[in-house]
């Protein structure tokens, strides 16, 4: 039993615009594990995903993050992506005039290495992946996220994830705003990306995605700290009781 963790976060303090949001967060994810992260609005879930990916506006004031044994905080975002980290954004941005096909060619070349990519094979892979996610092939020729519906944007994130073949997948509320069928497709996509070496950090407010993607562990983030970790039974408890009962215990420990 000597497997190294994929991701190792210790005593992370981070903030944005001079405001501290994460206040001593610890988390370890091992290969093959699915972790769910829940917490009320504004508790710092997206802050954590932005810090993991290296958003320049977010400042880490204390603590360490190791990814596959490397000091993640030393790497610019593009090298984190190349090392195998993928973030499905809560609010993906549009890039006018840049088609999905063009963008993904550049991204796949950057992540897999230019020598590894043959244009024709990649185009075939893109078409196949789009079909598999029940997206119209015409999406490949549309500008990335421009005029996409909320659900289409989420599906586009999953499309990118499948093409980039990451080791650690962070899904920031990818399930929010999806209809029942789209939710199933997204879950199917995540299963396809999973392997014995892959880890998932699934940020969500809802139980329903967790029925499709059962987590090994569930964590509750409150005021910048993980105040409780447990198994899937924790989710049902949150659905029933909300977060307030945890607030009191959080206050007691700080």
């Amino acid at each position, binding site marked *: 039993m000597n497997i190294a963790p994929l991701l190792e976060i210790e005593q992370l303090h981070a903030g944005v615009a001079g405001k501290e949001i994460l206040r001593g967060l610890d988390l370890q994810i091992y290969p093959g594990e699915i972790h769910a992260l829940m917490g009320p609005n504004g508790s710092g879930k997206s802050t954590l995903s932005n810090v993991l*990916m*290296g*958003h*320049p*506006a977010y400042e880490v004031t204390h603590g360490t993050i190791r990814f596959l044994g490397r000091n993640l905080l030393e790497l*610019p*975002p*593009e090298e*984190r*992506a*190349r090392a195998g980290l993928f*973030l499905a*954004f809560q609010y*993906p*941005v549009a*890039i*006018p*005039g*840049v088609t999905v096909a*063009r*963008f993904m060619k*550049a*991204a796949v070349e*950057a*992540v897999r290495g230019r020598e590894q990519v043959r244009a024709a094979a990649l185009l075939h892979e893109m078409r196949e992946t789009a079909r598999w996610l029940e997206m119209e092939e015409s999406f490949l020729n549309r*500008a990335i996220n421009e005029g996409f519906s909320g659900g289409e944007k989420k599906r586009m994130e999953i499309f*990118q994830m499948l093409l*980039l073949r990451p080791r650690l997948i962070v899904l920031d509320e990818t399930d929010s705003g999806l209809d029942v069928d789209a939710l199933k497709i997204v879950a199917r996509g995540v299963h396809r990306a999973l392997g014995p070496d892959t880890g998932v950090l699934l940020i969500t407010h809802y139980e329903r995605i967790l029925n499709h993607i059962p987590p090994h562990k569930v964590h509750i983030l409150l005021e910048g700290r993980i105040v409780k970790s447990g198994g899937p039974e924790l989710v049902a408890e949150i659905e029933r009781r909300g977060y307030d009962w945890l607030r009191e215990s959080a206050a007691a420990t700080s």
Partner: protein
Amino acid sequence: MADLPLDNKLLQEYAHGFVTPVEEELVPPGLNEDIVRTISRKKGEPDWLLEFRLKALRAWQRKTEPHWAAVDYPPIDYQSIRYYAAPRRLSAGEGMDPEILRTFERLGIPLHEQQRLQGVAIDAVFDSVSVATTHQKILEEHGIIFCSFSEAVRRVPELVRQYLGSVVPPGDNFFAALNSAVFSDGSFCYVPPGVRCPLELSTYFRINAAGIGQFERTLVIADRDSYVSYLEGCTAPIRDENQLHAAVVELVALEGATIKYSTVQNWYPGDEQGRGGIYNFVTKRGECRGARSRISWTQVEVGSAITWKYPSCVLRGDDSVGEFYSVAFTNKRMQADTGTKMIHIGRRTRSTIVSKGISAGESRNTYRSLVKFLPGADYARNHSQCDSLLVGNRCTANTFPVIESENPTAILEHEATTSRISEEQLFYLQSRGLDPEAARSLIVNGFCREVFQQLPMEFAVEAVKLLEIKMEGSIG
């Protein structure tokens, strides 16, 4: 397609900055009646053409250099410029200098008939003269005349005489008058009625000699119901001095004819300090003379120290259409003042303007347009869209759209935006593995997409690559 004009995968910095060691025949510097007569005599021109030049010279002498454009440069000494330079062997009738062939090959433009480009006929202009025109046979089979301007004067003098100066009169403006007095060569094209030109026609301009100006003249005539697509490319050596390029392009579209004219301008832009570079003062105008005719200008301007250029359409024929698609990229100390004029004369004439300005470094990028509806232009319409993208904080972008309507039925829509590359967009692309430079370049190319789509396919690919190269190192 591997060998394309404007192929530019060579270097990050200006890759076309070499000088060709070729013996050139030069006229002494300065501009006066003697020089004009000398040029005309060297070219063995008929009297009417000499008259045209002298009239233009007199108009030029009466005019003063225009200074309304938002560009700054030290005064130009017109008497220190040489107005004619030609490779000696060519003017001595000894055929083309092998050095010149090699020059064009290095630029990606083979002139040998064996290795010429598929689907593109090229007229290559080296300093003041046209040195070669390819694909003559196919063109002749269709009755298309495509040759150097000088040759056209000999071959079809009546056509040249009928149309020369009919769109841009010799005294039109200071730079057009200068060109009309001293123009040395350029390209001529005539497409007969009903003919769809089977090849892309292309002129490639190369300035080589030091201390000379280039003043070429292009005249394209599309007769009734014909179609032609024309592409122009330009480069010059790196030199510390500024060189003047004052071209005139005239297009005439008769009833039902279509002319697509695309330019990829990559003249040497000068260095970081603003030393050297081409002054590009160009007059381009097309006239939709017949009903249902169409003229479409597409320009990708990525070079020159100063660009002063407003490709325009005079929409005389009823139901005629004018289009202007432009990408103007400025970097370092470059200054561009560019845009278009759409003059609506005929009924139901339509025009479209799509302008994309990108400024980086300490450059200055100005868009300027005039959309005019004359009293007879019933139900004419214009749609203008003009977007600026700023890269960095030390550059400036301005837009000056002017509208003059003398017809209440005319309809005009105008949209304008100014934006910066957002941190969120950059981060999104970086999170997918792109480094910041590649990310910016992708965003800029996306910004220009609508314009690039107008270019013939192969040239669009080249334009994308060219812009990528230009974007490198543009963030200081």
